[in-house]
C-alpha cells in the first residue's frame, strides 16, 4: 500500500511539485522571518564585533549597548590606558536615537569619535572620508542609496545639521544602523563633552580578558568591565528577546500555513483517488492501512517541501539582499533543524484531513460501471 501511495504521488508530477512547492513556500516563510531576525540581530552587534576589543568598559550597572546609556569620565580612559597589561584603548561616546536623513528618521547607533581614537570609526568606507570632524557625519552606504543623500548633503542629528563626508559599508540595519559623528558634536548634544560611554581595551599578548577585567575593576571605580564575548552575547540575547515573540508568531503562522497546505494536498490526493481506495477496501485493505498510505503521502510531500525550502532559502535568500539592500538575511542550519522538527508533526496532523474520506469510502462503489 505504501508503494502504491508513493507511485500514485509520483504518477502526477505536476500535482506533486505544486504541492511540495506550496509547502516549501510556507516553510520558507518561517525561515525568511527567522533569517531576517538573525540578520538584524547580527547587525545589531556588528559594531561590537568589528572593534575586536578584548574588554569593554562601561558605567557600573550597565551591561549592554543596545537600548542602554552609559557615561564615564574621560580620564578613566587615560587611567585604563596606563594600566599594566593594557596595550591600547579606544573610547566612544554613544547615543541610541533617530537621525533625519533625506527627510526620514533612521533609528541609529550614533557613535561619537575623537581623532585620537580612529580605531573606533567605520571599518570599511565605500566613498569619502572615514573619520568625521566637527559638523560632519559618516552614514551607511545603504541609507545613502535608499534616501538619495550623497556626500556633501546635509542630515540632521536632533537639531544639529551635519554634512555627509563618507559612506560606510556593513553598517546598515533596519532596526539600528551605525552613524559616526565627532565626539564634540555628540558631546554637546548629550551634555557629555568630557565623557565617554564605552572604553574598548586591547590587552598585551598573553593576557587573558578575565585577568584584565579583574585588574580594571580593582583599579578604576564605578565601572563595569566585560569580555568582548560576554558583551556581544549580552546584546545579542537582548535583541533576540525583543524579537522572540514576533518570531514565535511568524513560526506559528508559517507552521499553520504549511499544515493547511499539506492537509489540503493530502485531502485532495485521497479525494482524487476515492475509486482506487474503494478498490483497495474491496480487495481487503483495512481503513488503517489506507490511512497509513495517506499519512505516508503527507510525509513525502512535507519532506520534499522541506528539501525544496532549504534549496530555495540558500538561493533566493542569498540573492535577495543584492536586490533589496536594506534586508539583512542570515540563513543558518539551525533554522532548518527547527523546521525539520515540526515537519513530521505537520505531516501527521495534516493527514488527519484524509481520515474522514478514508472511512467514508464505500467499497461498493467498485461496482459502479
Amino acid at each position, binding site marked *: 500500500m505504501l508503494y*502504491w501511495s508513493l507511485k*500514485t504521488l509520483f504518477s502526477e508530477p505536476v500535482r506533486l511539485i505544486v504541492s511540495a512547492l506550496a509547502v516549501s513556500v510556507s516553510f520558507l516563510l518561517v525561515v525568511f522571518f527567522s533569517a531576517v531576525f538573525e540578520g538584524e540581530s547580527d547587525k545589531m552587534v556588528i559594531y561590537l564585533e568589528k572593534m575586536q576589543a578584548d574588554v569593554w568598559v562601561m558605567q557600573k550597572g550597565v551591561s549592554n549597548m543596545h537600548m542602554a546609556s552609559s557615561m564615564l569620565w574621560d580620564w578613566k580612559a587615560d587611567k585604563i590606558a596606563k594600566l599594566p597589561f593594557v596595550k591600547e584603548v579606544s573610547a566612544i561616546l554613544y547615543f541610541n536615537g533617530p537621525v533625519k536623513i533625506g527627510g526620514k528618521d533612521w533609528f541609529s547607533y550614533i557613535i561619537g569619535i575623537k581623532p585620537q581614537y580612529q580605531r573606533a570609526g567605520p571599518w570599511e568606507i565605500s566613498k569619502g572620508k572615514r573619520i568625521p570632524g566637527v559638523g560632519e557625519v559618516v552614514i551607511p552606504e545603504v541609507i545613502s542609496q535608499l534616501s538619495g543623500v550623497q556626500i556633501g548633503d546635509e542630515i540632521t542629528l536632533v537639531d544639529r545639521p551635519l554634512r555627509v563626508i563618507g559612506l560606510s559599508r556593513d553598517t546598515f540595519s533596519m532596526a539600528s544602523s551605525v552613524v559616526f559623528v565627532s565626539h564634540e558634536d555628540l558631546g554637546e548634544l548629550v551634555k557629555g563633552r568630557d565623557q565617554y560611554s564605552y572604553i574598548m581595551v586591547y590587552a598585551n599578548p598573553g593576557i587573558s580578558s578575565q585577568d584584565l577585567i579583574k585588574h580594571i575593576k580593582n583599579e578604576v571605580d564605578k565601572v563595569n568591565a566585560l569580555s568582548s564575548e560576554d558583551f556581544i552575547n549580552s546584546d545579542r540575547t537582548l535583541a533576540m528577546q525583543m524579537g522572540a515573540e514576533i518570531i514565535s508568531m511568524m513560526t506559528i503562522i508559517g507552521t499553520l500555513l504549511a499544515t493547511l497546505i499539506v492537509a489540503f494536498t493530502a485531502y485532495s490526493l485521497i479525494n482524487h483517488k476515492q475509486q482506487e481506495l*474503494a478498490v*483497495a477496501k474491496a*480487495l481487503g485493505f483495512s481503513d488503517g492501512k489506507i490511512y497509513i498510505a495517506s499519512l505516508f503521502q503527507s510525509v513525502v510531500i512535507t519532506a520534499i517541501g522541506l528539501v525544496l525550502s532549504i534549496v530555495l532559502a540558500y538561493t533566493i535568500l542569498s540573492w535577495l539582499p543584492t536586490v533589496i539592500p536594506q534586508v539583512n538575511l542570515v540563513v543558518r542550519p539551525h533554522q532548518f533543524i527547527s523546521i525539520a522538527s515540526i515537519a513530521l508533526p505537520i505531516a501527521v496532523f495534516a493527514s488527519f484531513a484524509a481520515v474522514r474520506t478514508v472511512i467514508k469510502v464505500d467499497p461498493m462503489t467498485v*461496482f459502479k460501471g
Partner: protein
Amino acid sequence: MEIDIIIKATHLSKFFGKGISEVHAVNDVSLNIKRGEMVLVMGPSGSGKTTLLSMLGALLGATSGEVSIDGLDISTMNNKELAALRATRIGFVFQSFNLLEALTVEENILFPAQLNTGGIQAAKTRLDNLLDRLGLATRRNALPNTLSGGEKQRVAIGRALINQPDIILADEPTGNLDSHKGQEVMMILHDIARDDNCAVVMVTHDPRVEEIADRVLWLEDGSLRDRKSEKHSWVKDPVCGMRVDEWTATITTEYNKQRYVFCSKRCLERFNSNSEKYKKSEK
C-alpha cells in the same frame, strides 16, 4: 456433497430505506455454490444482482439471513475479519476493471498479495504463471492507460487470482468489452472454475455465457425465480451481429424511433459514431 459447498446463503435479504420508501433489493434468497462451479446470476436491471454479489463477497451486510464461506458464518465477523476474508478467500472482477492507474500490470496483479501469507515475494512465482496464462507476459511493465479493454480485464482477473482464492465474484466482466474480447474473458473465467476448482459467480446480462455456465440463477425483484424460456427475446446486435436477449439487455439506444440493443458498450459507441451505416446493414 456438502463438503464441496463453498458459498451457502440462507434466507438472505437486504432492504434499503424505511417505511413506504423501503426497497427489497434482495428478498429471502437461499443458494449453495460448489467449488469448481460457474454460476451466472442474471435478471433484469435493478433486480438485485449486484447487491446479492456484494453480500456474497462480504462487502455488504445482510438485513437478515446468513452467508457462509467455506462453513464460516460471515455475518458474525467484524470489519477486520471480513477484510481478511476478502483478501485471502475471494477474488473480485469488476465491469470497469478498477485497475490502479499508477501501477504496472505486474504491480496491479501483485497488489493484493501483500495481504496474503508470504506477501509479494511468495506471490512472484504465481505472478509469472498468471502472466503466461493470461497472455500478459509481454505487457508486465505496461501501465493501465496503455492497455486495451480486454487486457485490462485480464489484469483484473490476474489480480483476483493472485491470492489463490476459493471464490471469484465477477460483476458484468464483459460489460465494457466488445464481443470478441468478452468471449475471451468468459473462457478464462470458465477455465478458472474448471482448472482451479474455484467457484465463479458472475453477474451478467450476456446470454452467450449461458452456454459455458454450469448453472443460471434468475433474480427478479430481489428473489430467485425459475426463468421461463419465453423470457428470451433474441435480437441481433446491429454492429457485431451477436445474439442479444432484448428482455435483459441494458445497453440500448433509440435511433429514428427504433430501439437498438447491443452486446457491449463498445458496439454502442460504434453505432453512435456511424448510425446510418448500422441502421442500413440491419435492414
